[in-house]
C-alpha cells in the first residue's frame, strides 16, 4: 500500500514542500520589508501623525430633501427632536441599563423590541436608539442623571414628517430605518461612505425612487478627542450637502378633492396633464398614514393595514389591473379608422346581438340601437358595433394598434411598483399558459377583447396615459409625478421628462371624429347626467369591467354580493378643445360607470378647471430662460 509509494512521487512531494517553504518565507520577508518601511524608514512621519492624532472623524448626516406639490405645499419635511441612544460597546449590561433608563423615561415593550432588532442589525460602534421623540421634561430628567449611564446619550435628530397624512401616501411613500437588506443595496451601489451616519432610507413611493436625490451627501466633522476618546472641540468641518428637494406636478388640493369624492369606496384615479405627462393626481383608496412607518410601524398598526380586506397598502392606480370595459371603445374606434376597416360615416345595423360561432354576443340594449355609425357607437356605447369591428381587425390587429398607446406595458412612471398588465394576443396566451388546450386562441375571445372585457387587464395609469396621448394628438410622455429636482442650496431646478417619449402617427381627422363623439358622451350620452350644467366643455367615456362571469344570465346588481359587482370606469378630459387634464377613474365594484365613477370625474374636473390655483407663468419663466442658457 502507501508505504511503498514510488520514490518518484515522494520526491515530487518533497519538492513541493520546498517550494511552499520558499514561498512562505518570501511572503514573510515581504512583510518584514513592509514593517521596516513603516517602522524605520517612515517612522518619523508616522510618529508625528500619531502625536497629532488626537483627531477623530465624525459623520454629519445631511438633511433630507423636502417634497412639495406644484404649488409649494409641503408633503414631506423634517423636524428636529431628541432621541436617547445607547452605544452597546460602552455598556457592560444592556438589560440592566435599559431597565434603569425605564425608571427615568418611558420605555415600553415596543421600544425594547425595536432596540433588539436594531442592535442585531447594527454593524459598528455607533449609538442605537432606545427611545425617540423625548419630551423636554424627559430630556431634563435624563441629563440630570446622565452620570449613572456611561455609553447612553441624548442626540438631537431630524425626523421625517408627512403633514398631509394619508393624502397621496401611495405617491409620496415613506422612509424607514435602514435594515440589512438596505445595507446590502447601499453596498451594492458603493454608497457606504455616504450612508455613514444615516439611519433612515426611502422605503416606498417617491421617497424610494428619488432616494439618490433626496438623501444628500454626508459630511465629516474633525473633532479633537481627549485620552478617553470623548470629543473636546470641533477642528474643521466638511459640511454635509443637503439633499435635493422635489417639486411635484401633483396638485395636493386636487388630490384631496379626488380622495374625498371616493368616500369609503375602493378605487383609483389618475389625472394627467396631456401636454407634459405630469401627473396632477394619483389616487388609490383606501389610503394609509405614512407617518406610522417612519420609526418602525407597531405590530397592531401593521396588522390593521396588512390584514384589512380593503388592502390599503395596495397602490391600485399603478399596480391593480382591470379590464377597461367600454372605455376601450374610443381606442377601438380609432383602430378601425386607422386600419381602414371603418370610415367615419360608415353605418351598420345593430339587431341587439352579434352571432359568432353559433354564440350570441348580446348588446346591453334589448333589440339593439338600430343603424349605428362610429359617432353613435361611442355615444350610446354600442357593443354590437365593436363585436363586428373586433372580428374584422382580428386579435393581432388589435394588439398591434394598442401596444404603442402603452396598454399592457409599464409606463415607466417615477413611482415604484408598477404592474405590467396584459394586452391579450395569441402570442401572450402562448407564454402565459402551459397546457396546449389553454394556449390556443379562440375567435370568441377576440370578440370579448373588442369591448374591453376578457383577458384585457390594464392599470388605471395605463388608461389615463393612453387617453392623455389620444387627446394630445399622439404625443406620448412618460408619466411623471416629479416636475423639478431643486438644489436646495443654489435653487437650480432640473426638469424631469421634458420631451415626449414617442409620437404616434395618427390621422388628425380620425382623432377629431373620436373626440367629437366623446364630447357628445358628456353632452347627450352615457356621461350626460354626471356632466349636466358643467361650465366647461369636456369629453368622456363610461365603462364597466366585469368581475364575475354570469354565463348568459342577465346582470342585476342587487342580486350579487358587493365584491362580485362590476367595476365602474370613467375616462374624461377637459376643456374639450385644448385639454389641460385627462383622467381615468375606477371604482371597484361600483356598478355602471355612469353611476359611480363619472360623478367623481366631474368633481375633479370642476375643481381643476374652476377652482385650482393656476401656475404663475411669470414666476417660472425666468428660471426657464436661465436654464436655456
Amino acid at each position, binding site marked *: 500500500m*502507501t*508505504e511503498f*509509494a514510488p520514490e518518484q*512521487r515522494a520526491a*515530487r*512531494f*518533497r519538492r*513541493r*514542500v520546498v517550494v*511552499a*517553504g520558499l514561498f*512562505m*518565507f518570501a*511572503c*514573510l520577508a*515581504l*512583510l*518584514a520589508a*513592509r*514593517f*521596516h518601511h*513603516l*517602522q*524605520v524608514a*517612515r*517612522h518619523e*512621519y*508616522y*510618529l508625528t*501623525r*500619531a*502625536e497629532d*492624532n*488626537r483627531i*477623530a*472623524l465624525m*459623520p454629519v448626516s445631511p438633511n433630507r430633501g423636502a417634497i412639495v406639490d406644484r404649488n409649494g405645499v409641503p408633503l414631506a419635511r423634517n423636524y428636529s427632536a431628541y432621541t436617547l441612544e445607547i452605544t452597546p460597546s460602552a455598556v457592560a449590561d444592556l438589560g440592566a441599563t435599559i431597565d434603569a433608563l425605564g425608571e427615568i423615561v418611558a420605555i415600553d415593550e415596543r421600544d425594547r423590541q425595536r432596540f433588539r432588532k436594531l442592535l*442585531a*442589525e*447594527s*454593524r459598528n*460602534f455607533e449609538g442605537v436608539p432606545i427611545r425617540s421623540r423625548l419630551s423636554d421634561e424627559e430630556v431634563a430628567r435624563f441629563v440630570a442623571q446622565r452620570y449613572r449611564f456611561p455609553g447612553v446619550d441624548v442626540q438631537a435628530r431630524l425626523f421625517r414628517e408627512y403633514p398631509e397624512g394619508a393624502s397621496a401616501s401611495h405617491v409620496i411613500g415613506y422612509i424607514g430605518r435602514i435594515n*440589512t437588506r438596505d*445595507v446590502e443595496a447601499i*453596498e*451594492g*451601489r*458603493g454608497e*457606504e*461612505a455616504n450612508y*455613514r*451616519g444615516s439611519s433612515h432610507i426611502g422605503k416606498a413611493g417617491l421617497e424610494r425612487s428619488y432616494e439618490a436625490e433626496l438623501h444628500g451627501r454626508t459630511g*465629516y466633522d474633525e473633532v479633537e*478627542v481627549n*485620552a*478617553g*476618546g470623548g470629543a473636546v472641540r470641533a477642528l474643521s468641518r466638511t459640511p454635509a450637502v443637503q439633499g435635493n428637494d422635489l417639486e411635484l406636478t401633483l396638485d395636493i388640493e386636487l388630490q384631496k378633492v379626488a380622495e374625498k369624492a371616493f368616500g369609503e369606496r375602493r378605487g383609483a384615479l389618475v389625472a394627467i396633464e396631456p401636454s407634459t405627462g405630469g401627473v396632477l393626481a394619483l389616487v388609490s383608496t383606501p389610503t394609509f398614514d405614512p407617518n406610522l412607518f417612519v420609526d418602525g410601524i407597531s405590530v397592531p398598526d401593521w396588522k390593521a393595514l396588512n390584514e384589512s380586506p380593503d388592502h390599503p397598502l395596495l397602490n391600485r392606480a399603478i399596480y391593480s389591473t382591470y379590464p377597461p370595459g367600454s372605455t376601450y371603445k374610443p381606442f377601438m374606434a380609432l383602430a378601425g379608422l386607422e386600419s381602414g376597416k371603418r370610415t367615419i360615416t360608415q353605418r351598420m345595423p345593430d339587431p341587439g346581438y352579434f352571432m359568432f360561432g353559433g354564440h350570441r354576443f348580446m348588446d346591453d340594449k334589448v333589440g339593439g340601437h338600430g343603424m349605428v355609425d362610429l359617432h353613435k357607437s361611442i355615444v350610446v356605447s354600442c357593443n354590437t358595433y365593436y363585436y363586428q369591428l373586433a372580428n374584422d381587425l382580428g386579435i393581432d390587429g388589435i394588439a398591434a394598434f394598442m401596444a404603442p398607446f402603452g396598454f399592457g406595458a409599464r409606463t415607466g412612471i417615477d413611482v415604484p411598483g408598477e404592474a405590467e398588465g396584459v394586452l391579450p394576443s395569441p402570442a401572450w396566451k402562448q407564454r402565459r399558459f402551459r397546457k396546449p388546450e389553454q394556449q390556443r386562441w379562440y375567435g370568441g375571445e377576440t370578440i370579448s377583447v373588442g369591448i374591453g372585457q376578457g383577458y384585457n387587464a390594464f392599470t388605471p395609469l395605463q388608461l389615463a396615459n393612453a387617453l392623455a396621448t389620444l387627446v394630445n394628438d399622439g404625443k406620448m410622455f412618460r408619466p411623471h409625478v416629479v416636475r423639478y429636482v431643486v438644489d436646495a442650496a443654489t435653487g437650480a431646478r432640473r426638469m424631469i421628462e421634458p420631451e415626449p417619449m414617442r409620437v404616434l402617427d395618427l390621422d388628425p381627422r380620425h382623432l377629431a371624429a373620436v373626440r367629437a363623439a366623446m364630447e357628445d358622451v358628456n353632452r347627450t350620452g352615457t356621461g350626460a347626467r354626471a356632466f349636466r350644467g358643467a361650465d366647461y366643455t369636456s369629453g368622456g367615456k363610461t365603462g364597466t369591467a366585469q368581475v364575475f362571469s354570469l354565463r348568459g344570465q342577465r346582470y342585476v346588481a342587487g342580486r350579487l354580493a358587493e365584491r362580485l359587482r362590476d367595476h365602474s370606469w370613467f375616462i374624461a378630459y377637459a376643456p374639450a378643445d385644448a385639454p389641460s387634464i385627462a383622467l381615468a377613474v375606477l371604482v371597484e365594484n361600483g356598478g355602471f360607470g355612469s353611476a359611480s365613477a363619472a360623478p367623481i370625474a366631474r368633481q375633479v374636473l370642476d375643481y381643476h378647471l374652476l377652482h385650482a390655483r393656476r401656475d404663475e407663468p411669470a414666476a417660472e419663466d425666468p428660471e426657464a430662460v436661465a436654464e436655456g442658457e
Partner: protein
Amino acid sequence: MIEFRFHPLRLLTALLRPLDPALMLILGALLGYAFVLIASASPERMDSQIVHVGVALAAMWLVASVPIQRLLSLALPLYVLGVLLLVAVELFGEVSKGAQRWLDVGVTRIQPSELMKIAMPLMLAWYFQQREGRIGVADFLVAAGLLALPVGLVVVQPDLGTSLLVAASGVYVIFFAGLPWKLIVPVAVVGIVGIGSIVAFGDTLCQPGVDWQVLREYQKNRVCTLLDPTTDPLGKGFHIIQSTIAIGSGGVFGKGWLSGTQTHLAFLPERHTDFVFAVLAEEFGLMGTLVLLLIYLLLLARGLQIAMNAATLGARLLAGAMTMVFFTYAFVNMGMVSGILPVVGVPLPFISYGGTALVTLCLGVGILMSIQRSRTAGSA
C-alpha cells in the same frame, strides 16, 4: 506514599505522550505573547481568554491522541455534516453584524463555516489518499468541485475572510497532491500581472469616468477604496490609516508595553481581535514584529518537517495544507493591518482574542501532532 508519588508522574507522562515538544514550545510562545498583548489592548477580556486557551488546548490534546488514519476516516462524515450545516445557516441562520453566519442549536450558537476550515483539507486529503497511485486530471476536477461547494456557501453568507481560508486550505491540498505546474503557473501569472497593474496604475484608473469594461461601477469603487483608503475615511479606510500610524509610530523598539497612544486613545478599531498586530507593533516596535515573524517561521518549519516525514499520502497532504493555512492566517492578517492587503476579517493566528478561531487553529496543531506521532509509532 510511594503510590502517591508514582501515579501522578505516570498520569503526566500519559498526558504528555501525544504532544509534540517542538510544537508545544512554539504554541506556548505564541499564547504567551497573546496574553501580554491582551493585557494591554483589552485587560478586561483576560479571564475569558484564559478559558478560551484551556478549551482550545483540550481540543488539541484530544485530536493529537487520535491516530491520523482514524481522523482521516472521519473526513467524509465531517465534510457532509459541514455542508449540511452551511445549507442550514443559509436557510435558518441568524443575522449578526450584517451577515448570516450563526446557527442557533438551542443551547448555543455555532458557526459551521469554522468547522469547514478543518473538514475541507481533511476531506481532500482523504480523497487523494483513496486515489493514491492513479491520481489524474479527473481527480483534480472532483477535488475542485468538493472545494467549490462549501466555499460558495460561505461566500454568500457573506464572509469573505472565512471563504478565503476554506478555499486556501483546499487549494493547498490540491497543490501538494501534485496539480501540474502548467496549470498553476498561468493562473498565478495572470493574477500577479492583473493585481500588479491595478496597483501600479490605480491613480489613473480610479478617475471618475474611466470605464473598466468588465467591472460595474460599484465594483470599481470597491477596488478603488482598497487602493486609496482616504476615499472612505470613516470606514475601512479609517481602520487602515489608524493601524499603519500605530505600526509606523512604534519605531524600532516600540513605545513600551501599555504605552501605545494609538491603542490607549481608542483610535485602533478591533484592537483586541483582527487589529491586535497593530498593538504589538506600536508597543514593541520592529523588534516585537520580527520576533513574532520568527515564531511563525519556526511553526511553519516544524509543520513542513512533519509533512516531509509523514507516513501516508493523506497525512502528508494534510500536514502540508495545515501548515500553509497557519501561514495564510498570519500573512493575510499582518498584510491587511499593515496596509498591503485588503481588509478581510482574518484574525492573527493564536494571538487575536476570541475562542472560535483559537479552537480551530489548535485543532490544526493537534492534527500535526497526531501525524507526527502516527509516524513515530509506525516506525517504532
